[in-house]
Structure formats: structure tokens, C-alpha cells
């Protein structure tokens, strides 16, 4: 798989006002995103996600290191014909309607006004803003969800190969969030490459092929969703379990509910448990791999806390990583390597 994004030892430093110090917004970051991949880029507020995206778009410049997008240095104008960007909480010219905004952005791709208008019409309809009540409204009267839809419409003008989405579902209600998640799944189905920065970990779990977590500008974990979420244990449910097997499993923490015994067994022991169950004439009701949630990994690594209502990370404070200097204490670092 060819690389759509290649980041090598990327560092971005900002001077601390009134001090002779610098802070590393991005710290020696190295990662690659393949073509056709939906890549989750996770981190708490201030972790360096948006800074990285801005470097990749050429909006700001790296202090050191390399960033290549679609084979060209970040910010290359020719590449910008093939990419798109949806910023977090996008802002638009308030006096314009959704169609006018998308027409304006389409013209920035060199489209003639009439073609741009046609494109805008189709995209505004596509994102659900083509209704009579919305079409003549200025953006100043739009809700956050509607603005986000305008943002998505402008991000699809050039049928991009690579999309940078920064918190696309942040602050949206459940319906708008689901709509945008569905759109991302559709883009995934179309084989687009997406660099998705999000606090909505469920969305990332659902949409992404791979994900990374950065904290204070440093990469903490990188892996496929299976690598990240795949647990070491499997839930096995048995019915009419023979007494000796039931005793063994119960001793390991299995729970009996009526005739059904639910046991959590190590992945490598599943075969022997099922063999023993068959020998004892027990019925195997289900065998389900026990997956971890991205949220668990995120909290474990970043040491933050999640908003119970929205499910998004609201603050990490300055709590240190869990033994961040030792790879043995952080099992996910192994995946990153």
C-alpha cells in the first residue's frame, strides 16, 4: 500500500511567552498513513493533533522533521487539488448561504462560476441542506450541526483522495453525529483516505482501520483496530457443563446463570475448553472474543477522564503517563514499535 501521508521525526516547537523556553506541540512524531486507509489520530485537547494537521496542510511550518502528503512536501499546491480539510468547528462567512459558500470554495479550485454553482447545488443537497427552509438562510442562522454539514460539503468539492477531518462530530447531537458517521463510512466504502482526528472514540472504533494516540506531542500507540482492541480473552458460554469442567472454570471466575456457565478464558485455552466440553457432552452456546474498548486504552494511556454525558474526553490535566518511560509498563507501546 502506497503512503498517502509520511511523517518523519516531525517536531513543532513554540516559544513560551516571557521565558527563554520552548514547548513541544509535536515531538519527534513518526507515522505513515497508507492510501485508502481511514486513520484515527487521537489525543486529548492540546495533545498536538490540530498542530500536526496544520503542518500537513502547510498552514504552519515544522521546526524540524519531514511531512509528505501524497508524495509531495506538506503544503504543495498541486497536492491541494486532491485533498480536503474540515476544521474543528468550521467558520464561514456569516452573511453567505450554504450554496454561496460552497460556490465560493468551488471557484477556488478554478471552477467557472456556473459549474461551481451546479456543484454547490448537488453538494448542499447531498449534506441535507437543500430544503426550502435552509437554502436561503445565511450561515449566521445555522446551528452547529448545519455548519458542520456545510463544512463537509466544502470538503467534498474536489472529490478528494485524502481528507483531513478534525473533530467532525464534536458537539453534535446524536442524529447529526450518526449522519456524519454514516458519511465517513460511505467515504471509507469509496476507498478514500482519511486522517481523522476525533475525541469520539466510538466513531473511531467504528470507522478507522488503524489508530494512533498522541499525548503532549508524542506518539504513544499505533496499531490496527484489531491490534488495539483485540483482547487476550474469549467469553465461552456452555450449557450442561460436566461437573469437573464446571468446577475448574468456576474456580477461574466463571459465573453460572441457570444451566449456562459463562467463562472468560485465555485465547490459547479456548480449544482445550471446548474439547473438554464436547467430551463431557456439554453444549457450546457461544464463543465470543472479548474486545477492549478504545476508551479504556485511551484513558489508560493518556490518563485523562471522560465526560460521562458525551463520552468525549474533556480534560487530561497534567497527569503523567502511566510509567511512560518504560515500555513494559505500557503494553501498547509495543504495538507502536
Amino acid at each position: 500500500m502506497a503512503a498517502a501521508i509520511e511523517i518523519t521525526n516531525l517536531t513543532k516547537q513554540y516559544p513560551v511567552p516571557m521565558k527563554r523556553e520552548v514547548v513541544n506541540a509535536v515531538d519527534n512524531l513518526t507515522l505513515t498513513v497508507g492510501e485508502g486507509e481511514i486513520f484515527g489520530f487521537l489525543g486529548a485537547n492540546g495533545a498536538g493533533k490540530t498542530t500536526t494537521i496544520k503542518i500537513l496542510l502547510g498552514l504552519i511550518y515544522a521546526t524540524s522533521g519531514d511531512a509528505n502528503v501524497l508524495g509531495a512536501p506538506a503544503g504543495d499546491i498541486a497536492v491541494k487539488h486532491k485533498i480536503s480539510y474540515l476544521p474543528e468547528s468550521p467558520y464561514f462567512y456569516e452573511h453567505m448561504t450554504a450554496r454561496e459558500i460552497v460556490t465560493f470554495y468551488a471557484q477556488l479550485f478554478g471552477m467557472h462560476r456556473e459549474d461551481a454553482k451546479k456543484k454547490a447545488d448537488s453538494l448542499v443537497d447531498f449534506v441535507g441542506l437543500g430544503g426550502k427552509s435552509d437554502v436561503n438562510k445565511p450561515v449566521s442562522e445555522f446551528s452547529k450541526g448545519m455548519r458542520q454539514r456545510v463544512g463537509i460539503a466544502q470538503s467534498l468539492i474536489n472529490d478528494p483522495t485524502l481528507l483531513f477531518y478534525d473533530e467532525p462530530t464534536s458537539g453534535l447531537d446524536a442524529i447529526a453525529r450518526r449522519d456524519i458517521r454514516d458519511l465517513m463510512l460511505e467515504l471509507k466504502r469509496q476507498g478514500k483516505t482519511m486522517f481523522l482526528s476525533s475525541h469520539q472514540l466510538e466513531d473511531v472504533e467504528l470507522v478507522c482501520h488503524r489508530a494512533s494516540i498522541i499525548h503532549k506531542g508524542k506518539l504513544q500507540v499505533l496499531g490496527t483496530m484489531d491490534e488495539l482492541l483485540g483482547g487476550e480473552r474469549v467469553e465461552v458460554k456452555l450449557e450442561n457443563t460436566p461437573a469437573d469442567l464446571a468446577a475448574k472454570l468456576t474456580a477461574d471466575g466463571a459465573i453460572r446463570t441457570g444451566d449456562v456457565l459463562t467463562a472468560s478464558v485465555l485465547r490459547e485455552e479456548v480449544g482445550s475448553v471446548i474439547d473438554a466440553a464436547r467430551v463431557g457432552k456439554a453444549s457450546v452456546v457461544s464463543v465470543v472474543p472479548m474486545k477492549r474498548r478504545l476508551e479504556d486504552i485511551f484513558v489508560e494511556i493518556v490518563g485523562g477522564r471522560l465526560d460521562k454525558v458525551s463520552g468525549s474526553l474533556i480534560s487530561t490535566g497534567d497527569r503523567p503517563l502511566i510509567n511512560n518511560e518504560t515500555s513494559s509498563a505500557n503494553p501498547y507501546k509495543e504495538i507502536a514499535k
Partner: protein
Amino acid sequence: MNTAMVIARNTISEALRKKILNAFLMVGVVLIALTFIFQQFAPRQELTLVKGMGLGIISLAGLFITVILCINLVPTEVERRTIYTILAKPVRRYEFLLGKFFGALGTLGINIGLMGLAFVVAVAVKQIGAENAVSPLILFKGILMIAMQMLLLAALAMFFSTFLTPLVNFFLTMVLFVIGNLSSYTLDLAKNSQVAIVKYVLLGVHYVVPNFGNFQYTNPLLQPDVVVKNEMLFLTQNCAYAVAYATALMVLAILVFDRREV
């Protein structure tokens, strides 16, 4: 350049919706209309007064429109983050900056043009039945000079807007406008100064700060006795000076903005 023009059109449409600009425009038009209240003077004095006030009002309104518009164009885009989605498109930074500048010029052109038109009409109406009436169209020369002065001022404010906050930019641009209008005095002061360092500072100010005083063309329009030797050359030179200086400022602005982080 097509991209710059798209941004320019958008800038004009946004700027014309800004109430503060419309307010200045309205004030300009209303004040020109108010020049008709001076009825107690002799007709010739009255006409001179109308012309003088009209040009002064256009100049003052133009000054505030130019400064307030141009100091905010780039910082506002950064502050409200609209610049992100624009520069993420295939838009070069210089195209963005030129688009904003041309948009500002278009807005100024419309504002000064409308005020100028109202002024010329006012003078034409005032001259009806007057003896030795001069075509009011010659007043457009004065309006052209004001427009050129504002072009130069716009470029100065745009240059500063690439690295200064709007507040600092406002005061700096205004101070340089005043100093630039006193350019002939700074040269005289430099020539007469006995202290070497003061002399060189004043000379530096004289040559570096745009000479806004060059564009004063009120006297020849008000006083028929004042004759400019080669009027066409004077006007052409001033226009060329404004365009050349504004171009130099915009080149500097582009160089600064190209490395700026947004």
C-alpha cells in the same frame, strides 16, 4: 490570478455589508448634501466652500474607510479561522493576500466613487445659472488623487496587517499618514537641522514614509488663479508613484505573509 479575483469579489461583497463602512459612506453623502446649507455667502465663495468641504469630507471618510477596512482584512480571517479552509484549497498565499487587497481596492473604489459622484452632482446643481461656470467634471481629478492616496494607504495598512495587531496597525498607519502628509515639512526641517543625527533621521522619514502630501490637489480646483504647470504630468506622476509604492509594499507584505503561521 483567477483565484485572487474570486477572493477579491468575496471581500467586496463582505466589506459592503459591514455597517461601519456603510455608515461612513452615508455620512459622506449626507455631509456633501449639507454643503447646501451655506447660503449666506456670495455665490462664488459659496461654490468654493462646497468644493472645499466636499473634497475634505471625501478625503476624511475615505481615510477612515481605508484604515478600518484594511487593518482588519487579514487578522479577521485568521481570528475567525476562515483562512484555514481557504489556504487548505489550492490557493497560494500571495493569491489570498492580493485577493484581499484587490477586494479592499474595489470596496474603496465603490465608496469613493459614490461619494465623488454625489459631490460632482452637488457642485453641478450648485453651478446652475452661475456665470463662468466650470465643468464639474474637472473635480474628478481631485477625487482621483484622493483615490490614489487611499490606494497607497491601503497597501500600507495591508502590509502592517500581515504582522501587527489591528490596534497597533491603526495607530501606526494613522501616524504615518499624518507624517506622510507633512513630508515637505520634514524635508525642510532636515535641511535646516544643525544636528547631524536629527538631520539624517528626518531625511530617512522623508524618503521612507510614503509622501501622502503629494496627492493634495484641492487648491487648483478651488482657486482658478492657481495653475499647475503641467497638470497631466503631475497627475500621471502621482498615480505612478502611488502604484509603484503600493506594489513595493505588497511585495513586502507577500514576503512576510508567506512565512507567517496562521
